């Protein structure tokens, strides 16, 4: 590590410490004016304000403030429930907005400054570090020391990162008021582009995109000898920056449904929720077109493109989850479990999630068309909230990303993503895509299996001279890159002979292995 790299790491870590430190810099004082401004529903205001009055003009710490606000709302709702006044129960979340409005401290007084400090230091630090990586080394495979590093082989630093990411997701989804400083940092940006304060999702989207771009630059450096990897990385960076991040904001400004037009049901599990369908319909021709586009992707786009190119067209070239896995997650790809047992678990889990998604969506549509919530005694609203919590938050978020340093960068894509399961079924049974092996050249070294992020034991096939047509293969092409003997190649060819005969060239007395 040279000086520039050391400075880079110091800059990046300082930015991280400041970022975390900001959470402890504010105090919270509620006033009657704030309460009046935030709670603009008059009946809500009437029922909540008597309780809130108790903390008016008191300077509180964050946890105390949040729990007081929550307690007031809970007490009010409890009373309504006791009186069976169900329609009066308050579902609106005022905690986040009250916390934001009551905040005072450095983030409030110098928001833009802190935002620039954090983004500047972290970006600069990361780029300084990356710029010096593999310096003076000819282009080639760069996996030296990966197994020795704490960060990349489940050491203390790796575990700390995993814990940080998991906590981040828990706060993001369930306790956003506690990270109000982080959210507010982006107010200057959102005020500028759309004239309103930032949501936690804007903050999340910003960091997500930043991670893909910066770690994408790292990929360019790491794989500069491979045009396949360069193009693929460019593609995920492009789709994240434009489709996932910028276009939805533009659509929002244009007062159109703010959606990611490359996100496909059932990964985009809210696609058929009534608020989404209504939004499309209310937005006129363009809205209808967006809805039709989404449906075309599901029923024509997925099978057709997967038939021609394999599921990689989506999973490792377009998808946002895939984009993060292929950039931020690249240093962790070797941590995926290659055992037969893991494969068995994977098949059961991923297809169960697909079934769950289909059932949940069926229930949602049933409610949409019939107006009835109950299906054989279960409310479709309950089903969707289970799905949102279990799959949307826990599986794809906290585990999906938080487990990078523990189980590799594709935990969600491999074990949980219902769209990956759907794409995988097409890829397994009807596609021109396969990974071919080069005659008898395999030496069973295991680089391919080690670096397969989907946990496919690629070597098992390669050493038998068998094509690899596993449903989970996302076509990242890394097995082919790391192979020292030029054995593996991602190919699209005529479907004939795809399942292949397992013959190792080189022995005149060969028998099918």
């Amino acid at each position, binding site marked *: 590590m040279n000086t520039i790299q050391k400075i880079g790491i110091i800059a990046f870590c300082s930015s991280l410490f400041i970022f975390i430190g900001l959470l402890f810099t504010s105090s919270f004082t509620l006033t009657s004016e704030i309460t009046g401004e935030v709670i603009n529903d008059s009946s809500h205001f009437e029922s909540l304000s008597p309780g809130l009055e108790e903390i008016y003009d008191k300077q509180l710490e964050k946890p105390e403030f949040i729990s007081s606000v929550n307690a007031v709302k809970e007490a009010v709702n409890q009373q309504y429930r006791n009186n069976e006044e169900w329609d009066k129960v308050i579902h609106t979340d005022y905690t986040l907005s009250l916390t934001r409005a009551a905040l005072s401290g450095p983030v409030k007084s110098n928001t833009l400054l802190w935002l620039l400090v954090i983004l500047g230091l972290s970006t600069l630090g990361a780029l300084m570090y990356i710029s010096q990586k593999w310096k003076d080394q000819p282009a080639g495979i760069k996996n030296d020391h990966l197994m020795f590093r704490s960060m990349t082989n489940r050491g203390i630093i790796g575990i700390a990162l995993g814990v940080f990411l998991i906590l981040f997701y828990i706060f993001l989804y369930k306790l956003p008021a506690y990270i109000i400083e982080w959210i507010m940092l982006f107010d200057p940006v959102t005020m500028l582009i759309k004239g309103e304060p930032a949501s936690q999702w804007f903050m999340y989207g910003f960091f997500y995109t930043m991670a893909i771009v910066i770690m994408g630059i790292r990929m360019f450096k790491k794989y500069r000898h491979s045009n396949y990897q360069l193009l693929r990385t460019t593609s995920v960076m492009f789709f994240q920056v434009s489709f996932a991040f910028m276009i939805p904001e533009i659509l929002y400004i244009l007062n159109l449904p703010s959606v990611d037009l490359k996100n496909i049901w059932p990964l985009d599990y809210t696609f058929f929720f009534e608020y989404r369908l209504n939004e499309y319909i209310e937005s006129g021709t363009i809205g209808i077109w967006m809805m039709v586009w989404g449906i075309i992707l599901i029923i024509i786009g997925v099978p057709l493109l997967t038939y021609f190119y394999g599921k990689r067209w989506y999973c490792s070239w377009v998808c946002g989850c895939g984009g993060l896995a292929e950039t931020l997650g690249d240093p962790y790809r070797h941590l995926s479990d290659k055992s037969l047992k893991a494969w068995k678990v994977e098949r059961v889990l991923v297809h169960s999630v697909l079934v769950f998604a289909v059932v949940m969506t069926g229930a949602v549509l049933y409610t949409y068309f019939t107006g009835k919530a109950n299906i054989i005694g279960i409310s479709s609203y309950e089903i969707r909230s289970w799905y949102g919590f279990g799959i949307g938050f826990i599986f794809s978020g906290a585990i999906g990303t938080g487990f990078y340093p523990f189980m590799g960068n594709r935990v969600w894509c491999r074990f949980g993503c219902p769209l990956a399961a759907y794409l995988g079924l097409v890829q397994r049974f009807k596609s021109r895509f396969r990974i071919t092996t*080069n005659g008898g050249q395999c030496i069973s070294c295991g680089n391919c299996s080690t670096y397969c992020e989907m946990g496919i034991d690629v070597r098992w096939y390669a050493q038998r001279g068998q094509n690899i047509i596993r449903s989970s293969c996302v076509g990242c092409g890394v097995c082919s890159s790391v192979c020292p003997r030029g054995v593996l190649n991602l190919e699209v060819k005529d479907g004939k002979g795809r399942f292949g005969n397992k013959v190792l060239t080189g022995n005149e007395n060969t028998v099918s292995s």
Partner: protein
Amino acid sequence: MEKIVIIGNGISGVTFARFMRKLGYQEQLIIISSETKHFFSRTALMYIYMGHMEYKHTKPYEDFFWSKNNIELVYDHVKKVNTQDKSLKLESGEAINYDKLVIATGSKPNFFGWPGEKYNGIQGLYSYQDLQKMEKNTEGIKKAVIIGGGLIGVEMAEMLRTRDIEVTFLVREGHFWGNVLPREEAEMIADHMRKHHINLHFNAQASECKSKDGKRVSSVLTTEGEEFEADFVGITAGVSPNIDFLKESNIETDKGVLIDEKFQTSVNDIYSIGDCVQHRNPPAGRKSIEQVWYTGRIMGETLAQILTGKDVRYNPGPWFNSAKFFDIEFQTYGTIDVEKQENENRFFWKHPKNNVAIHLAFDKNTGRFIGINNFGIRLRHEFFDKKLKMKAHISEVMSDLNEATFDPEFFRSYEDEIISEFKNSYPEIEVKNQHKPWYKKIFA
């Protein structure tokens, strides 16, 4: 119940055992090894040292595989083979008897009896134990000397460079891997090694290792009188069959265990396969000792067929091999000798900037394609296997070259340049360039 005992759990012995089961053999199979409990890929040892993989990643089969296939594993060392009462004496003191014995004990690094070669910090690299030793021997050191310019040497150089150890590479021949590679490609590889900061010395014959404290090596002397400082010395001047334990037995050996075309040794019911064998009658055009992964595997496959009753002989197809020199991948199909042969025409092409090259040999008179070395470009094994077997004409090989490439999508294609250069060199040979650009291949 019949009992087949295999000594050695490398690629040959393990392939043999696997194919016995595949071909329906249901009697007892025992594999004895003192190297590791389970089969691992020897070729991946370097990646463990470099931190690309851990030992567990180098095991091609999960540990349950062996009991599932009813293959018994014994972690012990065979000291002696007693052919009279058909038994093996093990290091642990136990004895194992056999009905049939398969010797697949591989190789050991060559040493030459130089003065001082027993000092600490001097070693070869072949076994898992060698790797562990190298890990210890290179801890915290600054300078290393590697003696012997072949595949293991360049691997060792790559390994040491990942730990920022200064590497001096002493090569006896005038160019790298001088008994295998023609000069043109050897020079390209030498240039590439220098880019990786290897100090290469050709025509340098080591003759002695010296030590300052009488324990640990401190320098290497060459016959020319040059002295190179060294905290570590890697001796990688080839390997030879690992058969010392057979010396007192009545199994006939020379450099290796002598076998016929059916792997039968001089003693009934004893067979030998892999690196440790020496063929009495090697197949046409092949050497009597060939120590590569692929021949070991092919021998294992073939012996299993023989012992399950098929009437076949050792018959490897056309020669092929592969390697990687730092970042340059190498494959070879057919034969390319170091020097151009009497009956041959040669064609060498190298990209002016990139480390991409091919070297072709074909018959001067008949035009028959003889062999190819390719570097930095991947070519299909099946393609050349077929062309070699059908004794294809060079014009046919060149015209179909686009079918042969195995490079990933979007990679730069070199076929046009190669073919036009070939046409310049041999205008009398007709070549049709059937190259398609990548976007046409994508929609093919």
